[in-house]
């Protein structure tokens, strides 16, 4: 069964890169431009994993994760946070909110796939 991954990022180029990399590896990809957009698109959809940026307008990654974990359907899905090295404390905050793991930007396609493989069964 094809698994669907949602990429949430306000940067179109990051979304495009994530999308391209995951599709090539055989995943379906849903794009969202910020946390709010992500939550809207999650409702009623069947998403297996979320990769979200931290800093976004409207709703940032942390808040989005908190909201996702509150949805019964997505209580246990893997959520990966995209952060940069200067946000070490954000990593902890993200974990506290319910993130499964993180990827440090900048990253290469193979690193992204490595993490997806690590958390998505």
């Amino acid at each position, binding site marked *: 069964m094809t698994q669907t991954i949602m990429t949430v990022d306000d940067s179109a180029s990051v979304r495009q890169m994530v999308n391209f990399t995951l599709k090539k590896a055989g995943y379906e990809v849903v794009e969202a431009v910020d946390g709010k957009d992500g939550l809207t698109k999650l409702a009623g959809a069947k998403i297996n994993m979320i990769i979200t940026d931290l*800093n976004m*307008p409207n709703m940032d990654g942390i808040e989005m994760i908190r909201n996702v974990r509150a949805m019964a359907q997505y209580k*246990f899905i893997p959520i990966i946070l995209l952060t940069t*090295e200067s946000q070490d404390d954000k990593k902890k905050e993200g*974990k506290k909110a319910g993130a499964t793991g993180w990827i440090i930007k*900048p*990253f290469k396609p193979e690193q992204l796939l490595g993490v997806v493989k690590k958390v998505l*069964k």
Partner: protein
Amino acid sequence: MDGQEEAFKEEAYELLTELETSLLELEENPHDMEQIGRVFRAMHTIKGSGGMFGFDAIADFTHNVETVFDMVRGGELQVTKDLVNLTLSARDHIKTLLDGEGDKDLETQIIASLQALLPAADPKEETVPGGIGKDISKSAPDAPSPLLTYTIRFCPALDIFANGTNPITLLDELREMGECIVTPHTENLPLLDDMDPESCYIFWDILLTTDQGENAIRDVFIFVEDECDLSIECVDNDQGSNVDELNGDKLGEILVKRGDLSNETLGKALEEQNLLGEILVKEKAVSQASVCSALAEQAVVKKQIERRREAVHTTSIRVAAGKLDHLVDLVGELVTVQARLSQKASTVNDSDLVSIAEDVEMLVSGLRDNAMSMRMLQIGTTFSTFKRLVRDLSNDLGKQMELTTSGEETELDKTVIEKLKDPLVHIIRNSIDHGIEMPEARKAAGKEATGTVHLSAEHAGGNVLIRISDNGKGLDPAVIRAKAMEKGLIPPDVDFTDKEVNNLIFAPGFSTASQVSDLSGRGVGMDVVKRSIEELGGSVDLNSQKGDGTAITLKLPLTLAIIEGLLVTLGRGYYIFPLTSVEECVELPRDETGKKSGLLNIRGEMVPYIGLREEYGIEEERPELEHVVIMETNEKRVGFVVDSVVGSQQAVIKKMGNAFNNAPDISGATILGNGAVALIIDVNKILDLRF
């Protein structure tokens, strides 16, 4: 990736425009948090994406601005006119960088000014981009570390599921690192009524033998460090002294070391003389799982030590290959003579002789296994010789490619390896020459410029599978079909599947390269490859997807010298079937006798059979009752009618030589204990001939 670089640039220009507006707003309202956040995010995105798409200079530079605005955001710095001016010039500099220009002096100046804004006491140590990304990128270690065995205890927090972590994926990841034994501990499971299905009550003991080092193991758990108790300990530290200490730790010692058991309880248990594990479990001192896991550790460590000890010994002696060949020949003859001795002993009523014959049989079979194993070589040496070939060829052709290998430790008979080399060279040349595209063509097809040829080896039953796969352009069935028609290899009006068409590259006199290069396409084609593999008793399978690459799988026998066979008779002759594919033997119903082929009802399944007497034109008198040997080959069952079944027989294979090219279904012969010659039947070939 070009399209993505463009996308990044476009986005960056947009962000820079927004940035300008925000900065000008900020100049008016220095405390507008929304604008501050916008500036920060713009810098953040440019930095993050820049690094990803190869604009490292931009990423590095932008990092400085981002740092400053992170502090502004945190209230540690105030927005001043100077800051706005500085940021504006930084913005302009980013733009020139994007345009592909940029003044180094100006950059240094801006960075210095930005850093001057930061509190002096906090030089903001440049944290090296690290973490998970980095760890994965260096997953291919330069120098192989020694194989070590670790014992890992992984106790996830009760609420580990809440973070979306599936502990199973972590265990799977460990399994990929090496030989791995996982023992789950279920003793903490509460009664069903008390159980919260969203909690994780299980913990695991994992015994992992890997060459990747402790840090690589820790990296597996990087996301859950804070949500589990993790202990990793090397239980077999590869110190020279350990090699002589064959037994490793005793069960009790292991349990005490892990804290599963106290020294006193151990002492008490040891006073009773029984199996320690059983006593401890009975006494409820430790759980069954703890004992299992400790026993597993004991076994693995022991095996590891033995393996290392073996390695120490094998490196200490060198024997000329010719001597080994001679030894195997002699052992082969000895097996034959021993079979005669056993047969004679069974007809003479002398119990002493029988017992001697049995001893000899045992010794000979030990000697045979030993002699055979001496000729087994790892295929890795052969693989590594191809590295140079690939390097040289890619230089000559102006292609970029790398050779990756796996399963180097797979062992094969020396003779098989020697005869395998030429076909492998040919296949690899073909992959490089016809398969891998020029770098530009690859990029245009959305692939990495560097092509990959992967060589792998693995055991599959009594066979070894060697696979040569590339991620090149694959075979084009349309081109092959046209070529084959032109050469008259296939009639124009018959439909073939793509796979059948692709297999035509193995047909004699076929060469697809429209431009004959220096490398392949020199007359010796893939037909030669196929023939040499078949001469080794192997087979060739081809899988190719146009655009994605080609994989050729060679299936080879472990050894050419000896097979386990089922001896049968037909007329006055003896024949041998390979025992591995024999399923059962049944009697032939009388009304089926004398047919060249037919169907038999074997417990409800209709199994086709072939009358070997009729097939081989054997005219000697037919026995009262004939038998059918049911074989399974290529997942199909098929029967062969013979006169009688004698029994299993170890056959030292003798080549029949060129004189018998006309008997393709006879793969060789062997000498029986009574001196008679028995012919070895190649079941697949006989089916090819018949169907």
